[in-house]
């Protein structure tokens, strides 16, 4: 059985990244971060470049936002905001240390043809880190970073169904650390990051749910980048890799340990600009509103 999409992608996949020039552990806002351990800048750069090269090899057009000194997490572009067609809803970060990123992402989006739609106060919302389309539905995570009220506003603004799910394990503080849509109706997830309500919501709304073990979830297996039928994830998830291959996906494991130190991996380092492959609106007429970079 193959669940990977064979559809011909109408447009070249486009992803936003930020070079890790100023990446490091300068504060602690999740259980992964430890300033005493820190990061290895050379190794960080090597790992980031490997991811960049893999994406380019897959035919992705990678855009770059300029790194800014003092904003170490700018490298995690998934948290820039949420993209829906030509609309960009910038994040409003829960932690003050990341709020400095907001104007840079908004400015980048505005100058690259997106309509920047600002979430009203006082809601917190951390972009594609906590809001992922699977089919027509926007699955959303709340509690640690984003808020239900923000999700509901976005659902109403975009006219899409949004299903907020509470995240219950602080290690999986963003939805994209424990849930990854692969194609419409297909997703991987780690059940331990959700309560029974969230598990029930996923089971009721996603036809093919692939469970990730606790051992592999902790190495950020769910923080994967999907390009067509290829899944890029952190090295160290042989069981999941096997499951994905058995349903028709090509798996590309990469070593991204330097970024796991900050609580991120492949997915966190990317923002899909033309819609994730799993999004129902991907490659539809909505895309035509996106200006080319």
């Amino acid at each position, binding site marked *: 059985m193959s669940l990977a999409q064979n559809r011909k992608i109408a447009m070249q996949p486009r992803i936003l990244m930020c070079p890790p020039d100023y990446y490091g552990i300068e504060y602690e806002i999740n259980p992964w971060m430890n300033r005493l351990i820190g990061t290895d800048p050379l190794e960080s750069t090597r790992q980031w470049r490997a991811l960049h090269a893999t994406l380019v090899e897959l035919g992705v057009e990678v855009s770059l936002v300029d790194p800014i000194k003092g904003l170490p997490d700018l490298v995690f572009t998934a948290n820039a905001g949420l993209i829906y067609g030509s609309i960009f809803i910038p994040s409003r970060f829960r932690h003050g240390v990341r709020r400095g990123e907001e104007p840079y992402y908004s400015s980048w989006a505005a100058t690259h043809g997106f309509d920047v739609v600002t979430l009203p106060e006082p809601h917190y919302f951390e972009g594609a880190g906590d809001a992922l389309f699977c089919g*027509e539905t926007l699955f959303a995570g709340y509690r640690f970073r984003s808020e239900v009220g923000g999700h*509901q506003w976005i659902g109403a603004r975009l006219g899409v169904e949004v299903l907020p799910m509470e995240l219950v394990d602080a290690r999986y503080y963003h939805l994209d650390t424990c849930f990854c849509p692969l194609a419409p109706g297909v997703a991987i997830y780690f059940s331990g990051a959700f309560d029974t309500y969230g598990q029930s919501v996923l089971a009721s709304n996603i036809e093919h749910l692939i469970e990730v073990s606790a051992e592999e979830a902790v190495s950020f297996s769910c923080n994967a980048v999907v390009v067509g039928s290829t899944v890029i994830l952190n090295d160290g998830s042989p069981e999941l890799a096997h499951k994905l291959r058995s349903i028709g996906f090509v798996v590309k494991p990469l070593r991204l340990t330097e970024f796991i130190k900050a609580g991120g991996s492949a997915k966190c380092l990317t923002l899909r600009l033309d819609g994730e492959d799993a999004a129902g609106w991907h490659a539809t007429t909505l895309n035509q509103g996106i200006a080319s970079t």
Partner: protein
Amino acid sequence: MSIDLNTPTTATPVATPIDSGVIEEVEVRGHIVDSLLLPKILDRILQMGGSFEIRECTIGSRRVDPSYARVAIKAKTPELLDAILGDLVEHGATPINPSDAVVVSADMAGAFPDNFYSTTNQHTQVRIVGRWVEVADQEMDCGIVIDHEHKTARCVAMLDVRPGLPMVVGYAGVRVIPAERPRGASPFSFMNSAVSSEKPKAVSLRAVADSIRTARSNGQKVLLVGGPAIVHTGSAQHVASLIRGGWIQTLFAGNALATHDLEQSIYGTSLGINMQHGESVDHGHEHHLRTINTIRRLGSIKNAIDSGLVTSGIMFEAYRKNVDIVLAGSIRDDGPLPEVITDMLVAQAKMREAVKGVGFALMIATMLHSVATGNLLPAWVKVVCVDINPSTLTKLSDRGSFQTISLVTDVEPFLRSLAAELVGSI
């Protein structure tokens, strides 16, 4: 779209009686059904020790349509309510914050300020410093006085207003919670308050008896409001039997019921008619006045009982059982008996005090006392009014005591059957 509210929740969105404690309304909107946010919120309320009532719920018809729910949350203490609200905010439930009740100081005694809030007999809440509070001593045609220090509110009658009393004016920050009649399970469910002589009496009677039993088992008092026809029709013994059986705790009547009841005990007549043979007795028309005179000479009904003069009847049993008795006089009274309160305002105040804790009221063959009592009772106290004259029953309902169940029937067979139903079952 799935509208299964039961998976995985254990909560069911049923109406919860609001009686005491603090209440706050929240609203939650969005795809709250498919995301299970609504059942989760309801579960959280129960898990944290609160209760809820869904006041409004609109389910979106298409998958992308948002749904909406307005939920009243009740908790025993403000601290618990705050904890529940704090928790629910995380799940997208936001408090609805209307304004506080507007309060002005009463500017004179015995009258409300202009634009005062005029109460109904239904559950009412006022908002004090951002919090909904139950109004105590609920009574129609009153004002609401606020105690800011203790965050409480209560109904106050016009004549009890004193200068400086903080009174609610206007409609802001006041809300009425309409009474919900229980459906199906209640013995009253088959009846409505339309006055009719063509109701199945045996069924009605069993329903009345069951309601009295329920009130007593809930620790509530049963109030009898009675007119002299009870004695004239030979029903005094049935009422005496009900009192003796412990089924009546409070008695409201006038000079006439007490007088003819005592007349029957002393002379064996009521208005001069022999209660055994139904015939006029010589000089029988004097009996009620001689009864009153004798009791007045003894100083009180109680003295007449203690002296052994009165040995049976409603008043005899009522005093023996320590029933709370309020005898209110009228302009046409003979005597009256010493216990009869002739100052109407004093009588009204005594009755107002005595209806506290009443869970069931039986009003029999007296129009003015019934209307007066109906004015004092909150709408959630069940009232059954029995009269041979339908206009009495209509008057009661027309004056706002809409919760009244009316039975058009002769009182004697009714009371005989009620006594037979209840006495012996205690």
